[in-house]
């Protein structure tokens, strides 16, 4: 069960022609897939398309009614490989994943798929995780499209355009026997809007039909000598077919006046940003009617030289608006113009920075600089003058950074608290990290981890640190998501085969948690359509690991510390695998809270646990926070002139996970923490005992109070 449920929203997927569909970009994409007769869908979760996977998962009933197969793939490679169903059969298929990282993983399948080509439309919906809000290294997916020769659509970021791109994507793919990438950026995935719906179209051929009527065509298999003919086919047949389709269907759009001295070429995804800059310069109206001609590339690969040369004809200068680097488009357009012998000057790098997201302010600065240089006559008087820049506030030293971190109650927090204590005992170690929530360990307060090189690659990235005569071992972390994605073979298998002596900690929180809590093989939950509850321990043992320790309650900091210490000091050779398992707190809360609330309402005995700090015992050193970082554990200033430092304090958001108490115990911090279990709807026995205890305690307290001075505020 994923973090966000789309159960309500997916009902909209049933609407037919004549209805206006309202919702987020990802929901619109799903609807467009159904309207275009898709036969199977799949993918791997990850921002910004996690919700697309969640929507598909929640829409399984509707998909089933239409005869569409849904696959929650084990990895992007598996997702991309599944498009092989469109090689011999006229079935449309679509898969989605985060990019560029997902495309990295999928690239083996992508290259082979692209070699033989496809018969049914094959669509890769790549969520370009670039710019603000991104969680990965900053790269472009574009090079993958070029090297494997798959076409890339980059539609304008509004619902009518993206849904049209889905249709064109399938048709272009079929017209040119080539897989097509549909690129959507972070904000485009979450943009809200509306479009006119059409009726859903059941796939003309389903995967069931194909299975029962298998076909093969030897010439489509990527093995020499076919691979040589595939390469020829790509440039002599598929490319011209694609260009023909793109031109005939006018996929790229031209806006604004036919004649002008300057123009702008932009990626479709950049269109709104370009228009906003022109609007602010008074060169376009509210509805996008522009005075500066724009050639909008809804298809960024392949480029259409004829269209580009015509657009640039008669212009003094054209601005290339291209996000990210290398500047593939700018270089290609420049070469085209040079070959055509034109005199139009191509501008891009210069008004725009060499790298980075084209934010609103950068777009405005870039376009106004270009217009100032080449189109000053078009600028209204106000736009020509450079106003004084707004004052830069002096808050840099005041406002603290706020990086993401572990949630309240996160079961991974105590693992890293234990790791920090182990390092205090045994000294610093080389620690390799992986991808997932556990990577927050590299931030304060834990500051643990040296590298992260890919999903499921944590232990593999420590592979070289295998020196049996060294008196220290490497430690590597990997999540359950990474483990099943890639880690089982690439990290564990590699360690077993090479007799790696390091310690591997597998952080098992029952979900692919960082991407939104999707189920995976080892999830404990029953899943109606997927097979879960396959223990990681069995898989690790099956790979041949001899030293395995399973921890079933990570909040037991002392135990985690002892197990890690044992792993680092044991004489046993080979990889030492610690599986630290506790359920993701976000998911656990979402599961348990309604159940508990209902039980309490029904008058059932319910115990609610929370933690607290005795403010007169806390001395305000905050050692507990340096081993926790829990959002609900903060500090507060007391109304006591004798105290200098704020004391620790736990707020109402505490979920009673117990980490702070465990840490105070394991690290021998202080006796300030207490655990309060409030018994709702107590039974007769609870009440009787409570009365007896209160009687005795109350009497003794009164006796002592009678013999001492009592200050009302102490």
């Amino acid at each position, binding site marked *: 069960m994923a973090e966000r449920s789309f159960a309500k929203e997916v009902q909209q997927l049933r609407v037919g022609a004549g209805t206006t569909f309202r919702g987020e970009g990802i929901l619109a994409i799903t609807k467009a897939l159904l309207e275009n007769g898709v036969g199977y869908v799949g993918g791997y979760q990850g921002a910004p398309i996690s919700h697309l996977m969640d929507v598909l998962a929640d829409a399984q009933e509707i998909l089933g009614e239409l005869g569409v197969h849904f696959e929650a793939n084990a990895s992007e490679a598996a997702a991309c490989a599944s498009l092989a169903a469109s090689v011999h059969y006229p079935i449309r298929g679509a898969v989605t994943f985060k990019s560029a990282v997902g495309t990295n993983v999928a690239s083996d399948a992508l290259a082979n798929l692209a070699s033989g080509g496809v018969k049914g439309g094959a669509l890769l919906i790549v969520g370009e995780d670039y710019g603000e809000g991104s969680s990965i290294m900053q790269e472009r997916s574009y090079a993958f499209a070029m090297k494997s020769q798959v076409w890339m659509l980059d539609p304008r970021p509004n619902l009518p355009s993206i849904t049209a791109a889905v249709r064109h994507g399938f048709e272009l793919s079929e017209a040119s026997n080539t897989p097509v990438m549909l690129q959507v950026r972070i904000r485009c995935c979450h943009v809200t809007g509306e479009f006119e719906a059409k009726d859903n179209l059941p796939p003309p051929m389903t995967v069931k039909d194909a299975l029962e009527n298998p076909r093969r065509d030897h010439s489509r298999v990527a093995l020499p000598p076919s691979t040589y003919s595939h390469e020829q086919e790509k440039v002599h047949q598929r490319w011209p077919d694609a260009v023909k389709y793109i031109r005939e269907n006018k996929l790229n759009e031209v806006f604004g006046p036919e004649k002008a001295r300057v123009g702008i070429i932009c990626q479709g995804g950049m269109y709104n940003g370009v228009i906003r800059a022109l609007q602010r310069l008074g060169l376009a109206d509210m509805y996008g009617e522009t005075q500066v001609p724009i050639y909008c590339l809804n298809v960024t690969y392949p480029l259409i030289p004829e269209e580009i040369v015509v657009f640039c004809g008669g212009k003094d200068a054209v601005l290339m608006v291209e996000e990210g680097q290398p500047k593939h488009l700018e270089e290609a357009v420049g070469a085209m113009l040079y070959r055509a012998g034109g005199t139009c000057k191509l501008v891009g790098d210069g008004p725009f920075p060499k790298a980075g997201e084209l934010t*609103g302010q950068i777009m405005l600065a870039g376009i106004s600089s270009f217009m100032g240089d080449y189109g000053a006559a078009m600028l209204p008087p106000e736009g020509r003058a450079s106003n004084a820049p707004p004052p830069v506030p002096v808050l840099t030293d005041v406002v603290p950074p706020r990086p993401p971190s572990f949630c309240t109650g996160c079961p991974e927090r105590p693992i890293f608290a234990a790791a920090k204590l182990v390092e205090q005992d045994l000294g610093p170690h080389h620690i390799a990290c992986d991808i997932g929530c556990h990577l927050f360990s590299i931030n304060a307060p834990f500051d643990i981890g040296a590298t992260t090189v890919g999903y499921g690659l944590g232990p593999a990235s420590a592979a070289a640190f295998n020196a049996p005569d060294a008196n220290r071992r490497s430690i590597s972390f990997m999540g359950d998501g990474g483990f099943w994605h890639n880690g089982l073979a690439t990290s564990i298998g590699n360690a077993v085969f090479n007799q790696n002596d390091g310690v591997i900690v597998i952080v098992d929180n029952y979900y692919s948690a960082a991407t939104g809590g999707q189920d995976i093989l080892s999830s404990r939950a029953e899943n109606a359509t997927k097979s879960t509850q396959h223990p990681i321990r069995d898989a690790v043992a099956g790979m041949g690991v001899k030293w395995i320790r399973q921890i079933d309650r990570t909040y037991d900091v002392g135990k985690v510390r002892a197990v890690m210490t044992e792993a680092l000091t044991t004489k046993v050779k080979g990889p030492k695998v610690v599986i630290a398992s506790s359920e993701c707190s976000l998911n656990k809360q979402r599961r348990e809270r309604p159940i508990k609330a209902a039980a309490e309402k029904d008058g059932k005995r319910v115990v609610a646990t929370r933690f607290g700090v005795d403010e007169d015992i806390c001395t305000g050193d905050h050692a507990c926070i340096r081993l926790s970082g829990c959002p609900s554990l903060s500090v507060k200033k007391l109304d006591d002139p004798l105290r200098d430092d704020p004391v620790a304090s736990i707020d109402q958001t505490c979920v009673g996970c117990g980490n702070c108490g465990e840490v105070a115990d394991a690290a021998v911090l202080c*006796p300030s923490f207490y655990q309060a279990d409030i018994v709702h709807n107590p039974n007769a026995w609870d009440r009787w005992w409570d009365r007896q205890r209160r009687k005795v305690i109350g009497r003794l307290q009164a006796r002592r109070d009678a013999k001492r001075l009592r200050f009302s505020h102490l």
Partner: protein
Amino acid sequence: MNEIADILAPAGSDTTAGVTKLAIMAVGGQGGGVLTNWITEVAQKGGYRVQATSVAGVAQRTGATIYYIEMAPRTDHLPVFALAPSTGDIDILIAAELMEAGRAMMRGFVSADRTTLIASTHRVLAIEEKLVPGDGRADPAPVMAQAKEQALRAVWHDFDAAATGSGSVISASLFGALAASGTLPFERTLYEDVIRASGRGIEASLAAFAAGYDGATAGVSEVENMPDIPSGITTPDGPADLIGGWRALEARVEKLPEAVRPISLRGLEKVVDYQDVAYGSDYLDHLEKAREKGGGFLVEAAKYLANAMCYDDLIRVADLKTRASRDVRLRNEQGADRDAIVHVTEYFHPRAEEVVGAFPAGLGGFIERRGSLMKALDWLVNRGRRVRTDGLRGWLSLWMVSGMKPFRRRLLRHKIEAEHLERWYSLALEQSDEALGIEVLKCRRLIKGYSDTHARGLSKYDRVIGALPDLAERDDAADWLRRLREAALQDEQGDALDGALRTIGTL
């Protein structure tokens, strides 16, 4: 922030004047998405075309998040909306936390000619502020001052308290504040209809909406400042003979300079509450030794003597945890009423050091000097102990430990603490440079915590005080000692302190 300076900001020619641009800056988990959906609904119901975007991703895990909405009156044409907020181009900026308002201003999302800033004055402290061994909290004053200059209008209120007071969350009270601000042309009832249509927790959301609406109308709730003068001096309750003893102590305080009296009374209360009236007399004996000094010295002496005398030992912890007043405070904190059944578990981890400190000084010293005995004792006691203090067995065991209070002055820990106090206080007294003496007093702040933390504090204190001989000859010695102390409070291991000490070495 270089980007801002690069902009050729156009003036007057903007064709998006008819578009309302609204950004929400929040901390992941605050419900920014819910607020965004509500605003989108209101705009749609109010006859607007609206577009919302967000960067849902890793920042949702407690990081700084941003949501962006554009809207324009509905016509036959589709406006082209931007997908991200731009510097100098925001009409309404909603900040769900005080420092996020600061971040919005730093990013240029608040401008004097057009932006209404709706911001909550409450703080969600960042980890960087919380983990400092001293007080690392950022100062809210510059942020609020900046808003005065940078916003067209700033609506400040503790919208978090407004929401939690209604059993809801901040998205609802901020929605109310937006309605109250009058920046969008929609009636209050339209906002409330949207909440009603949204499903769960409607009553609580509506209450929080109203609280936010009223809060925004009422305006600023001043950010709390600590009172300089101690408050709440009261006469204690107790048996007549003890009250008599207390009166005598009060009379001695009356003889101190006026400025020193309030803090001395607070110190006295703390010390008497910690031990007894006689201990209070000891406190005043110490304080009166500084009678010749100036008021500044006396104030600090009154404060830090009280803290030094009330060291944290087993007896104090047991005493505090078994009092009736503790039960009242705990129930208050946990939102449990008087009759509710609350099971309370304490997390203890005593070591031999703490236990031996509770032995009579002679015996304790004997054991402490013998490593093997200490080791044996540690083996016996050093482990985590969960004690149920609502239960009789746990409560009684603590009650018995706290019953050792009358013997405290004969115990090893007291001997150690008294000797340390004597050394520290004499050192402060003997400084001819009174400012330096005051700084020596203030170094007592470094000693806090229990077990390892306490040891680390002591070591920092020793390192800071150890620099005194190198400083004594200097005119600015007091300032240097202050700097060393502040450095010591910056990080756990004292790395900043070591750096400062190296600097002193080069003087």
